[in-house]
């Protein structure tokens, strides 16, 4: 308990040092020949069109039935190139769990912490039509597309947002934005070609995936996202399966409600269908604190009953690129051994 409190105090005090600014203006000026760095917006390298930045995260977990653990859980480098033309390049290179201190064990790291998280080229034809080639985040739901620690409100991630599909796809994508009836509709159609860029491809769920993603702004505050993907399931001898998802996001004056639902169904047997749903609310408090509550229900297999998971969290965002989080999760019928307990983290976009 003392360790938890100490962790919280350290991260909050450290964060408060950044909170002295009344305002926050990390915006780049028009490109000059000199280099231009802003915290949370990266380094623009003169007039080359290159921007280098990234994010990092430290995490402490005290979970039920597991040794306590402190880790440098993520260090990602975002590297992009955009010189004002139609071709853009983007990459995210990640070190995951590269330094881990586990109770009762020596200092260590994940066996293969380096991963090319994203690496792609975009060709923009118009606002309505663009092409992407390379490795990108699989467009299922909303969370998977903004899953970086500094961008989400909780240290833990709902199962619904990653358990039933591969988080990355390597192949081609056609995407764009159209405005039917004055409402914004973002679409993407994509297909996987290879998994050679995946360091952990043997654990990957997908093979020869193809799908679409629609992101519709119902109102200025409300977005509805629909996703569908058909893929060969590696775990089941490449049997074709489908996953459909829907999610809703509402935000107004820093209040947020978000929810995602996915259903994964096999073409041969219904007994292994998976589904999950979560709902999360975020309420702003004074002094740049936020309180978050989440409920998730996940069914990993029809032969078992559903797992229920409740999470209560507190987040402190003293400046936009920095977030400190602490949370406690409780499960019910947790036969899937979903992590329960206390977790805290500090994450920074740089």
């Amino acid at each position, binding site marked *: 308990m003392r360790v938890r409190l100490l962790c919280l105090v350290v991260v909050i005090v450290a964060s408060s040092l950044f909170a002295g600014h009344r305002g*926050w*203006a990390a915006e*780049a000026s*028009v490109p000059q020949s000199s280099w231009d760095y802003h915290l949370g*917006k990266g380094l623009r390298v003169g007039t080359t069109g290159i921007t280098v930045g990234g994010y990092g995260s430290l995490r402490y977990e005290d979970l039920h039935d597991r040794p306590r653990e402190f880790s440098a859980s993520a260090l990602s480098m975002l590297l992009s190139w955009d010189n*004002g033309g139609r071709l853009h390049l983007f990459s995210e290179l990640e070190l995951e769990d590269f330094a881990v201190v586990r109770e009762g064990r020596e200092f260590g790291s994940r066996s293969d912490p380096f991963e090319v998280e994203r690496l792609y080229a975009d060709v923009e034809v118009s606002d309505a039509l663009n092409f992407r080639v390379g490795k990108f985040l699989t467009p299922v739901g909303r969370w998977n597309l903004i899953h970086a620690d500094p961008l989400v409100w909780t240290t833990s991630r709902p199962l619904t947002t990653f358990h039933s599909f591969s988080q990355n796809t390597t192949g081609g994508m056609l995407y764009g934005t159209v405005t039917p009836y004055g409402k914004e509709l973002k679409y993407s159609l994509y297909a996987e070609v290879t998994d050679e860029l995946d360091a952990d491809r043997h654990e990957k769920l997908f093979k020869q995936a193809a799908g679409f993603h629609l992101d519709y702004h119902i109102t200025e505050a409300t977005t509805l996202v629909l996703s569908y993907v058909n893929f060969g399931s590696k775990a089941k001898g490449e049997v074709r399966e489908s996953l459909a998802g829907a999610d809703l996001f509402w935000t107004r004056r820093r209040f947020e409600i978000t929810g995602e639902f996915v259903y994964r169904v096999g073409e041969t047997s219904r007994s292994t269908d998976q589904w999950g749903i979560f709902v999360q609310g975020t309420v702003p408090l004074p002094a740049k604190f936020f309180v978050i509550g989440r409920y998730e229900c996940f069914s990993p297999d029809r032969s078992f009953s559903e797992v229920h998971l409740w999470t209560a969290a507190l987040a402190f965002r003293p400046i*936009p690129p920095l977030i400190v989080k602490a949370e406690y999760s409780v499960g019910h019928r947790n036969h899937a051994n979903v992590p329960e307990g206390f977790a805290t983290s500090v994450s920074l976009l740089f």
Partner: protein
Amino acid sequence: MRFVVISLSLWWTLLAIPVWAGEHIAVVTRASAAKPSCSKAELARIYLRKKSWWDDGTRITPVNLPADHPLRRSFSQAVLGALPEELETYWNDQYFHGVMPPHVLTSEEAVIRFVASTPGAIGYVTERAVTEEVQVLLFLSPDTDTEKATNR
């Protein structure tokens, strides 16, 4: 004492009134370019970096004033429905995807110079700052609902 209090109150009131009070905000592009049509909704999409191309195929380069500039705050509230600091979460998400917010210029004069010399650029200034080097796409009324934004 009362005189001092009244004087100070008046002084603070005057400070709080934007220098352009009553003036329209002029949304401008280069004078030599073909005049594109632009609604308030399209302007919002341009400044959120969701719309990147003019109809003639020119890349759009929007420029902003600093986040604490009164005209920027008025423009942001009128067009984007939020103050600059309320959009930081949005820009964090965009940064993760390699999309950057519009570049910032320090003054209206700098905006005029940049827009006048950059194909596809778009900016905003007070009506009285408009010169012959730029053309006005849209006027926004600072004291009324921005739905009344007018093309002239």
